[in-house]
């Protein structure tokens, strides 16, 4: 297995007027791996996904995709590069054109990027349909004839139709019932194994992220507060927010539920110092005055918290 880097993001930031939606986000994804961004609503994870694809222009930061600096590309170069990166959204009904048949839905991206002849495009469409376990007869039907899970399968097939190197999946199973969610998650992993696709996977559901991802970044109020390999994050979380988030997942008895007070502050008024301090059970004076830096913990795990300095000093 090579360790070629597919996507490298550094210092990515985005402000909308006074709202700092994403602040100084950095991560890399090796080819064929899945990086998960997890966080609550308002954490900036979806904006980060759109920034990576330059669907939203970043205020600052660098995005290197397949070794090329995306932020420096001209509009036409960017359009050519888009062929290699596709997106899957939470609501396939909103992201796919309901007036297109499944055939058109699967052929269109290939046509737009000038891949193959019409006959070849159709062949690819048929193959993808089989890969997402839908019958060939589905080709001539329209989206409203399918259930939510089937629509998401079609969205996945469409994303794969240009044979992309990177797929950005934003809450792809959040709208689905649990029994169907499992089908789609299995499918995504199978296809990733078969095609060697790299994935940026965004979800608020820690159980889903744990199942899907190799490496995880935990976001809070526009920043990554902790990141590292999946098992480290789940078994040895270092940041108080990651700990609280994990403890909030239901299914461990009510006594185990974390009682994190308050709610995520508005991105209009990010607290000084550490953004999490207003809800952190361990906050002390330094947290208000000084922003904690990201520091290495070992085994590729990194977190931004003053407590870690304390632990080292003690």
């Amino acid at each position, binding site marked *: 297995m090579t360790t070629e880097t597919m996507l490298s993001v550094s210092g990515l930031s985005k402000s909308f007027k006074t709202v700092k939606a994403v602040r100084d986000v950095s991560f890399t994804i090796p080819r064929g791996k899945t990086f998960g961004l997890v966080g609550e609503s308002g954490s900036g994870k979806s904006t980060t996904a759109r920034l990576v694809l330059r669907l939203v222009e970043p205020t600052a930061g660098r995005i290197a995709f397949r070794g090329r600096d995306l932020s420096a590309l001209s509009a036409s170069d960017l359009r050519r590069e888009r062929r290699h990166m596709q997106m899957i959204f939470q609501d396939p009904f909103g992201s796919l054109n309901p007036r297109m048949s499944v055939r058109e839905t699967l052929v269109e991206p290939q046509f737009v990027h000038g891949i193959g002849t019409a006959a070849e495009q159709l062949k690819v469409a048929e193959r993808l349909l089989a890969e997402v376990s839908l019958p060939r007869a589905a080709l001539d039907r329209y989206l409203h004839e399918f259930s939510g899970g089937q629509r998401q399968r079609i969205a996945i097939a469409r994303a794969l139709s240009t044979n992309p190197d990177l797929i950005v999946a934003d809450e792809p199973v959040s709208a689905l*019932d649990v029994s169907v969610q499992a089908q789609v998650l299995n499918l995504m992993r199978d296809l990733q194994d078969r095609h060697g696709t790299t994935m940026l996977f965004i979800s608020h559901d820690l159980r889903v992220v744990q199942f899907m991802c190799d490496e995880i970044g935990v976001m809070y109020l526009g920043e990554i507060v902790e990141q590292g390999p999946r098992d480290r994050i789940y078994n040895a979380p270092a940041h108080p927010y990651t700990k609280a988030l994990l*403890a909030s997942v*239901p299914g*461990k008895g009510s006594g185990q539920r974390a*009682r994190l*007070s308050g709610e*995520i502050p508005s991105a209009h008024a990010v607290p000084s110092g550490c953004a999490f301090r207003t809800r952190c059970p361990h906050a002390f004076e330094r947290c208000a005055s000084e922003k904690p830096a990201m520091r290495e913990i070992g085994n590729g795990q990194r977190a931004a918290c003053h407590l870690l300095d304390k632990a080292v000093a003690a």
Partner: protein
Amino acid sequence: MSAHSAPMPAEIAVPPAQRRTVLEVENLSLSFRNADGLLPIVTDVSFSIRQGEAVALVGESGCGKSITASAIMGIAPENAVIGGRIVLNGQEISALGPKERRRLCGRHMGFIFQEPMTALHPTLSIGRQMTDTLKHNLGLSQSAATQRAAELLDRVGIPRARDILKGYVHELSGGMRQRVMIALAISCGPSLVIADEPTTALDVTIQAQVLDLLEDMRRELDLAMLFITHDLEVVGDFCDRAVVMYAGDVVERGESADITRRPSHPYARGLIDAVPAHDDGRTRLTPILGTVPPVGQWPEGCRFAPRCGRADEKCRTRPHLETLSHTDVRCWHPLEAGA
């Protein structure tokens, strides 16, 4: 003052078995009348809830759990045809007319919705919505109702209650909105609270806070609670007993610990296996094949049979809900306990 307050008894140390039954639902069925005749939505639902007990109604979208709740509240759509018996505090409320049913709402039954943003009025103040309810149901004066509304907000953990009363739903955060919804539901001292996916729209950390609050309220007020959810993990944490629904039927019913750990119905088992559980290291999930059949296209016999690995000829006839060792199951081939 005290004469104006609804009863808010302290925790009662009565053993569960001796507790009064608050709600009994017997063979509840519901169909929609449309141009083609009757479309069955819910066919045979029976369960009961005792004082201080939380019972979960679990299932995926389209299983009929929410419509069952609205049938109990008496707020089902006009074209719904409802059969079976609903008994609240010993009174058969399913026999009452719409006006009498409405009088039970608020005073005897409270309702908590999934999306407080849309379930609270956008242009009436929080205080107005609360005092309208208090004045109508408890006959309070405006000032007594305002006083009580402020106490209720305080009780559900909302700071600066007096200011919030003057505010509107769009000014509140998601968690605060659901707290207001809870305050409204318990405001007139109901004995039964129905919560329809009360935490589904919330972030996990807020979800934990709201579940804590619901549990506190249930203990303090000795409420019977019907908790509607799709999430079996929440059921295990929060509820005493659980009723699993599939395609308009109850398929399994029992203690929530049994249902979430060793269910007997293949569908209940499937729901558990389909969720990526914490640190089980699986690389593949075990989904339930196929999809929930849409209303009006239910198969004959066992409705889960087309998606079930254990189905055979026998499943073409409809199974009854039968009591097994630990739960009641509607299945010809139930799983062994602990399987």
